[in-house]
C-alpha cells in the first residue's frame, strides 16, 4: 500500500501542478516576452565554489546561541564523516539557496511572463519563482519554499517564505527556521556574462539580525547542463555521473554560445 501511495504521489504531480490551469482557444496564444524585463535565460555556474555562506562583508552569519550550537554539531558531525543531518545524502533537494551552488554544479534558468524557473543539474530538481504570486503569511514548508517575483528595473526580486527548517542554507549546514524570509535580487552584470544574486535573510529565531550575502555566477554555454540521477550516482558504481567540468562530450562551440 505504501508503494501504491508513493506512486500515486508521483503521478498526482500533474494534477497538483495544474490545479488552476485552463486551456486556451486564443488564436495567438504564445505569450509575448514581458516588456522591459531582462532575459536571465541561460546556464549559470557559481563563480567561486563555496560550501559556507558569508555575509556581504565576509563575516560568519550572525547566529543566535542555540542556532550556533546546532551549527557546530553539524560541523563536528561532518568532520567525523557523519552526514545524517543532511537530507541531500538521501537525494532530497538541497533547497534554496543551497541549490544555487551545491557541488559547484550549474543550473539553467527558463523565463516566461508567468514565472522564472531554475532547473538545477543536481538531481534535475526544479525551483520556481511565480511572478506576482500573492504570498500568505506562511506557506509550506517546502524544500524551495514559496517564491513570488517582481521586476524592479533590471532586477528580479523574489520574496521567499516557507523553506523547510531541515534544509540547511549551505553545504556546511547553516541552520534556519521555518519562519525564515528571504529576499533574493537577481540581475545580470558584466554585459550579461555574469548573474548576481543578492540574498537577504530575516529569521529572528535563528539570527541576531537580518543579513545579506552576494553570490556571482558565470554564464556557461547552453550545452553545459548534464543529467544527474542522484540515487544512481550514490548507489550504482557504474552509472553515468556528471562531474564538474564534464561537458558530456559537447563539441566546443558547437551550440549554445550566448
Amino acid at each position, binding site marked *: 500500500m505504501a508503494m501504491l501511495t508513493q506512486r500515486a504521489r508521483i503521478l498526482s504531480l*500533474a494534477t497538483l501542478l495544474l*490545479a488552476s*490551469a485552463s486551456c486556451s482557444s486564443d488564436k*495567438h496564444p504564445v505569450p*509575448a516576452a514581458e516588456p522591459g524585463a531582462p532575459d536571465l535565460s541561460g546556464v549559470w555556474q557559481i563563480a567561486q565554489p563555496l560550501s559556507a555562506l558569508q555575509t556581504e562583508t565576509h563575516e560568519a552569519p550572525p547566529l543566535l546561541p542555540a542556532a550556533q550550537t546546532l551549527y557546530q554539531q553539524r560541523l563536528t558531525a561532518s568532520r567525523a564523516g557523519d552526514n545524517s543531518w543532511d537530507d541531500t545524502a538521501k537525494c*532530497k533537494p538541497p533547497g534554496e539557496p543551497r541549490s544555487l551552488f551545491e557541488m559547484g554544479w550549474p543550473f539553467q534558468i527558463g523565463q516566461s511572463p508567468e514565472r522564472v524557473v531554475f532547473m538545477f543539474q543536481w538531481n534535475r530538481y526544479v525551483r*520556481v519563482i511565480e511572478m506576482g504570486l500573492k504570498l500568505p503569511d506562511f506557506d509550506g514548508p517546502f524544500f524551495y519554499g514559496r517564491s513570488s517575483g517582481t521586476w524592479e528595473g533590471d532586477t528580479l526580486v523574489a520574496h521567499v517564505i516557507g523553506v523547510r527548517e531541515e534544509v540547511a542554507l549551505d553545504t556546511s549546514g547553516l541552520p534556519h527556521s521555518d519562519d525564515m524570509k528571504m529576499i533574493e535580487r537577481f540581475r545580470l552584470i558584466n554585459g550579461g556574462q555574469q548573474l548576481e544574486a543578492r540574498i537577504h535573510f530575516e529569521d529572528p529565531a535563528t539570527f541576531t539580525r537580518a543579513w545579506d550575502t552576494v553570490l556571482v555566477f558565470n554564464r556557461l554555454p547552453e550545452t553545459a547542463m548534464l543529467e544527474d540521477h542522484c*540515487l544512481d550516482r550514490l*548507489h550504482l558504481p557504474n552509472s553515468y555521473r556528471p562531474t564538474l567540468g564534464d561537458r558530456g562530450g559537447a563539441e566546443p562551440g558547437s551550440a549554445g554560445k550566448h
Partner: protein
Amino acid sequence: MVSAADPQDLRGFWFGRGASERSYAANDRPGPRTRSKYELALLCLVDPGVEPSGGEIFQTPAVITWLKNTDLRARRIYLNVEHTRDIKPTYAGHSIGHWEGATLVVDTVALQGTFGYVGTSFHRPGSDIYDQVTRPGQKLPPPTQYFKNEIVMATPTLHVIERIHKINNGTQLEDDLSYEDPATGMTPYTMQAIFSFGKAGAYLEQFCEDGNDRFGPAYAEDISRSGHK
C-alpha cells in the same frame, strides 16, 4: 530571439491531452523488452524525454527546454548541432533538432531507462495507445492497477524521430513520433501526441525522493530486481 507570431516559437505551457484517435500508425506491440513501470517509478527513475508529456516550453536560439509536468524534469533539444561524440546513455538521451519550415524535427539517441505510456494520467480506456501497450485480450484494469502493465524499455540503441509543429492556429502542438530499435528486433512503430496551449497555475513542489526514506544501500538491489540496467 523568437517572436510570438513565429511558428517556430514554441514557448508556453502545453497540456498533454494524450494521443489522438490517429495515434498509432499501427503495427503490433512495440517490442519484447518490457518491465513494470510501476516498479521502476518507485525507484524514482525518470521517464525519458521521448515519452510525450505536457509541460512548459522555454526556448532560446540554441536550446528548446521542455519542462515535463509528469515529473518536473527538463528535457533539452539542442538546435542545429550534431550528436556529440561518445554520448553516454542517460534517461533523457541526447536530442538534437532543426527546423524544416514550421516543423521542428528532433532526433534522439543514447537513451536508457523507462519508457511507456500506461500509467500516465492522460491515458484513457479505449485509446489507441492503451490498446497498443495492453496485451491482446487483456481486460482494462482499474485505474489503480494501470501501473502494473508492462512497458517498453528505452535502450541505448533506441532511435526516436519527432516532427513537432503547431496546428489549429497555434493553439495546439502536434508531436509525431517514430521509434525504431533494429538492434533489439523491436518492430518500428509511430504514434502521435497532441498538446493544447493553456495557462498553468502555480507550480507545487513534490519530489519523489522525499517520499521514501528507504533509499540507500538497498537501492542497487531494487534496481537489479527490477531488471533495470
